[in-house]
């Protein structure tokens, strides 16, 4: 039962600083919007020449046709790029990445995955990420960098041919771009699901505490 009296311990534990600083929250939601615009317009572009034996339902695409999808994609890319770069720079400069995402040890990940799957993973202190979070958040940053690099290479395969070379050739860059999208979508599903399971983490990403 929750006690109505406030102990010294609780007072001290009351965070004077936000769990999620304002810059993280602002960039997080800008990124969420940019990602959704990029994914929906990207599906439109994919549908023009599918890599696999399926297309994305028209209802979930942006732009109406290929030309419109391309316009959306090459507009939202600015939002994604500028916000993403600012996030990376701030994340490294403030030491947030180092403090929050490291270390990631295999045993720690294994332990926390097991705990998560049996619903025994605690979330008492939201300022400390567990190993599952660390792995997912660090992993999605890497995927984000890859999807931007492969995307830039596909956008300007002559000017940025060295980016294309990084992936082997143009068609391979397309596949990399697609699978990064798929990884981001998978992340999105897990991420949103977990945030809903631990609503105070969602609150922290909105109001900071």
């Amino acid at each position, binding site marked *: 039962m929750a006690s109505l009296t406030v102990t010294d311990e609780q007072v001290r534990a009351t965070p004077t600083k936000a769990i999620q600083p304002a810059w993280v929250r602002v960039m997080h939601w800008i990124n969420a919007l940019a990602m959704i615009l990029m994914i929906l317009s990207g599906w439109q572009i994919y549908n023009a020449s599918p890599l696999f034996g399926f297309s994305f339902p028209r209802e979930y695409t942006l732009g109406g046709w290929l030309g419109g999808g391309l316009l959306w994609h090459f*507009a939202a890319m600015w939002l994604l790029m500028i916000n993403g770069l600012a996030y990376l720079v701030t994340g490294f400069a403030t030491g947030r990445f180092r403090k929050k995402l490291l270390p990631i040890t295999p045993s720690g990940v294994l332990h926390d995955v097991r705990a998560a799957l049996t619903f025994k993973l605690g979330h008492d202190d939201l300022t400390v990420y567990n190993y599952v979070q660390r792995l997912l958040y660090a992993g999605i940053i890497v995927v984000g960098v890859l999807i931007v690099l492969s995307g830039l290479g596909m956008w300007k395969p002559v000017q940025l041919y060295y980016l*294309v070379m990084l992936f082997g050739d143009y068609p391979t860059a397309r596949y990399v771009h697609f699978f990064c999208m798929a990884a981001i979508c998978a992340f999105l599903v897990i991420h949103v699901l977990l945030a809903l399971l631990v609503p105070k983490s969602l609150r922290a990403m909105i109001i900071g505490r």
Partner: protein
Amino acid sequence: MAKRSFLIPGVDKRLLIKDSIKTMPDVTRRRFIAGGASLGALTLLTGCDVIDSSSAEEMLKSVSKFNDAVQSFIFNPDALAPTFPESAITKPFPFNAYYDLDDAPDVSAADWKLEVRGLVDNKKSWTLEELYKLPQVTQITRHICVEGWSAIGSWTGTPLRDFLKLIGADTRAKYVWFQCADKDGYNSPLDMRSALHPQTQMTFKYANEILPRAYGFPMKIRVPTKLGFKNPKYVVSMEVTNDYKGGYWEDQGYNSFSGS
């Protein structure tokens, strides 16, 4: 899905949609594009009715123009497209158009002449025989379609910049505008800088054989630094001009620069 039953067997639904968009009057097309666009407009400015779908489209167009400006500022327009060994050539090289191969222009070599117009000293028309006598070079480059697919091919012909020099074109003009024999009159403008690019070619041969009908007989303009739709086939005329005359796909909303 129930919708699929309406599709006509044997008809490529993408082409069908493209063709039907084309026949739409401007307002309908805009509304059609906006139908998809409105979701984004909504996401961008929820609860705000200042932005309607057509102004979202205007915004997207201005970003596209902004992208062109950024590109011309940061990129080198003379950068060379990567070239490939013969072993890398895609076989068979795909035929691609907004119509079936059966509907591709069947140009008679004897009757065909390349018409030259606009800001040039010598406006004489050229027969195929005369054009074949010009020095030719071969390039093996990747053709990249706006749809995302790509294929490597071998093209042989005369660098366009040599031809422009030969006819005394005013290379300070902004565009070279090509008209083609395709049904519905394909056309496309090419910015002068790209027209003067060393790899931009008046193509007469594919894989060392006379350009087949599928790839644009008798003449194609090969621009390896541009998306495929900026590589017109079945070319019948070129005009050196300062006016932006639009293009078949450009008018429908593809970015006109579309440089890669």
